[in-house]
């Protein structure tokens, strides 16, 4: 989660320092987008298993994620 922390750090105000290639901001955004997309897919993948636990299908507890 290093990159997410780094990204969050950038959202905090800071003193002006030496100029940096502003493209770095867009690169960080791509990583953040990838993280968010990853989180969305994670939820999608496990949602059915999560629901299944509560509908009484005990076997699913033991399965590992594909």
């Amino acid at each position: 989660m290093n990159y997410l922390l780094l990204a969050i750090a950038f959202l905090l105000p800071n003193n002006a320092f030496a100029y940096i290639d502003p493209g770095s901001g867009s690169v960080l955004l791509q990583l953040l987008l990838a993280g968010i997309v990853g989180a969305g897919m994670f939820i999608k993948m496990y949602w059915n298993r999560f629901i299944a636990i509560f509908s009484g299908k005990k076997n699913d507890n033991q399965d590992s994620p594909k």
Partner: protein
Amino acid sequence: MTSVAIRDYMQQPENEPGSYRDRESRVFIENSHIYRALSNVAQVEWETLKNSKFFKSQSDNGNLVKTWQSNKVINPWSAVLEHEIIPFISYPYEWSFSMLKDAALLHLDLMLAGLTEGIIPKDSSAYNIQFVGSKPVFIDIGSFVKLKSGQPWIAYRQFCQMFLFPLLLLSHKNYDFRASMRGSIDGINAQDFSKFFAWTEIFKSGVLFHGFLQAKFEANASKQELKVKKETNKINFKPEFIINNVKGLRNLISNLKWKADHTTWGDYATDNSYNSTEAQLKAEFVKNSVQSGNWNLVWDLGSNTGIYSRIAADKAKYVLALDGDNLAVERNYNRLKKENYKNILPMVMNLADQSPNMGWRGLERKALAERGKPDLILCLALIHHIVISANIPLDEFIDWLAGLCKSLVIEFVTKEDDMVKILLANKEDNYHDYSQENFLNCLQKHFKIQSQQVLKGGTRTVYFCSK
């Protein structure tokens, strides 16, 4: 990025002045041939590209401009390619909404196809795409490189500036991107884009992530020291990140719609001022005039629905359907796509303020006439708008036409016409030069009238003339 001009008098390859940013390849023009010279580095990339399934399939379906290795030698370059010629160059600030949208989707589709073999375009300029008729074609073959391991999508920011933000502004805000694209050669940046939206609009597609967040990250990144860049370089970027981002953008853009306001000329087809017999007479006259010659390039000025462009297209190699109203061009373009016309190019063009020479040394993007002069111009139901609405002197307009073409189909509309009465309703009539007599004098200074047809009980007459 390249731009192309068709010249037929060169004796040795002339460097295409718009082709300079990419140090690894450069475009040359000689005798109407378009060459791309490659450095050692670019030649290696070309070897990968030309052997890929991606290159073959996308060339076969016409998405990539036809390209082949040439025997030509241009020192000190390592290799030379040749490209098929694009009939007429156009720029994003001359495109309607769906033209830019289709260009964006082409770019993204090419990325997805290329990435299956590890190939990615190194830039995302909208100027890498040209239209042949109503089909977008990717022309910057030198842009394709092998994706290096761990590398992010370097050109993502440029994609947003050149494609995404302009499309979002027109779709969400009905703000026409053309003025911005013409005013800023690099497109619209994230900070400027974000200023159009209030925080209450962050859930409009693309605004929060690609717009606001990118603007914020860019602003903060520029305040940090270089060591931060070193940190980001250590992160191992996976190709899946790029593919997912591209797929997301593709979805986003294909769902964008332009809910245009009613524009003056957008609805011309349904409420124009000719009855159907008159319209048929006019169409017959244009058809007979067009049939009298073989034309390389026709400009249809004030083309609107494109009805006369289509008549000209039967006898011309290529037709430009020019109109100053972007909704009229949008509708014409969408119809042309369905009709599969291959030789009509619609463009948004204000004749009173045509695209000028622009960019580096004023040579990078060319003025309209520099890209190819027409041998026939259609100027129908237009001259009253040019003189009375745009205030251009009648004689200057005719002189301008004469400087461009050898043959002309032109319609004069008298002050007794209903439409002219509307144009003059809220103005003082200072247009003393605007008379049929003066019009004919100006016309006959340059042209000989071959035939004419009176319409609408004498308030309109259409002329076919040539030098």
